[in-house]
């Protein structure tokens, strides 16, 4: 056991040494079009394009790490990667444990999505099965405000909620407008948005450990430049044809 521990230690030192040059970026890879696995089996999406852009501008070598959504903050803190770019909204609750760069996608409301033709009475909102992705701002909102009289069904990944909505096992999904709008647009009338807009969370930023002030400064500087010359705007427009700009250009 001791030799095992020591060899583990040696391995640890090696990886610590190697990590000095490479910045590891964590993402989920299951939240189209923010981040997903493309036809080549590689991660792609807005988060990935933004991450690569920032790394290039800041002169950093970056590599992507895939991690499940529900452990994405713990594994950032545990040091398995150095930044989260996973369509993560900047919220006060998350800011208690991690830091964020400035937003690279402006604040986004949350919307209810149903199978087309479903009617839900949003004034009383009772006896409805509401699907959310666990550990999201929507899950927090639903738990705080909608749990009375309704059933909250939590899924580990957003597409799982989508599958359950299609199969009618939940009545409605509460998710980021940017996410559901693209789905509605491509579902050939299968889904529609209903009800009020729900205001939760801020813009989407890159999550960082609080101790990594140097990395935060580098990324923020690169982000400010990418916003100013319109790169971020064009990236958002590329991945979200349904969203209306301009986002950061005046």
């Amino acid at each position: 056991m001791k030799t095992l521990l020591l060899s583990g230690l040696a391995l640890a030192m090696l990886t610590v040494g190697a990590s000095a040059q490479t910045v590891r970026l964590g993402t989920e890879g299951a939240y189209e079009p923010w981040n997903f696995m493309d036809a080549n089996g590689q991660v792609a999406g807005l988060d990935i394009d933004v991450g690569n852009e920032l790394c290039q501008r800041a002169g950093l070598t970056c590599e992507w790490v895939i991690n499940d959504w529900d452990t994405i903050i713990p594994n950032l803190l545990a040091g398995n990667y150095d930044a989260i770019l996973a369509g993560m909204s900047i919220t006060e609750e998350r800011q208690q444990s991690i830091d964020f760069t400035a937003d690279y996608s402006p604040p986004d409301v949350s919307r209810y999505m149903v199978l087309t033709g479903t009617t839900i009475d949003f004034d009383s909102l009772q006896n409805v099965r509401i699907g959310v992705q666990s550990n999201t701002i929507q899950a927090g909102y639903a738990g705080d405000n909608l749990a009375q009289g309704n059933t909250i069904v939590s899924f580990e990944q957003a597409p799982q909620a989508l599958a359950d909505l299609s199969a009618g096992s939940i009545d409605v999904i509460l998710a980021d407008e940017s996410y559901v709008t693209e789905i509605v647009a491509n579902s050939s009338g299968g889904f529609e948005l209903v009800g009020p807009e729900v205001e939760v969370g801020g813009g989407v930023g890159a999550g960082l450990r609080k101790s990594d002030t140097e990395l935060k400064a580098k990324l923020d500087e690169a982000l400010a430049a990418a916003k100013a010359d319109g790169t971020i705007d064009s990236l958002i427009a590329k991945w979200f044809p349904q969203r209306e700009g301009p986002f950061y250009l005046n």
Partner: protein
Amino acid sequence: MNLLDAIFADIALMARPALFNIYFAFAAIPLGFLFAVLLALGKASHNRLTSAFSRGYIYAFRGSPFFIQLFMIYSLVLSLNIPLWRPWGISWLMLSPLFLGPAILMLNTAAYTAEILYGALRTIPKGEVEAGRAFGMSRLQQFRFVTWPHMIRIAWPAYTNEVVFLFHATALVYFTLPVIDNQQDLMNKARELFERDYNVFLHFSVAAGYFLAISLVIFFIFRRIYRRLMAHLPAEPDRRIRYAPRWL
């Protein structure tokens, strides 16, 4: 907070989640056992079709991971919601983890239990069955009075292990099925607590303690039943149930 307080706090937090694991296991046991008896008799049957089905079922469920069975059956049941469950008005039942969890556990444990019972079935002396027939027993009577008592006594120790394994398998249910409101099981709760303070030793040990304690209770109860089953037989030096993993 000192260590002891932390442990007691965890024990209190995990009491309700533990009930979910107990519920999953015990909801699956009765029907699983019944189905297993049918499968075992099916496998031993002279009817080719029955035998082939039972063999195939047992092989498929014993030959693949429970984790994948959970994923597969959940997504299959989900895709049948609109064509079947919805028109029949049983969506609320079929898609509830509290029904589906035990149902999939039941399908799984039936295969393992059937293999145990089938093994026991083959040890029954031919002479005993023939004696029953000579007494003029019907086939049902032969099963009830000759085959069944023999089979259950032979199979009981292995079945005990299977029930403990089944209980352990409940740890996987909420890794795959959606979580409704705040229905959490032990693993779910342990992971949630771990993600708050990274104290892997504390939370996982308390969860392990719950599993251990409940497993010991299962062993205790099943040993009592075994003594009863064997009460009429002359005492043997060693009639303890030995633990062995999921095989014969």
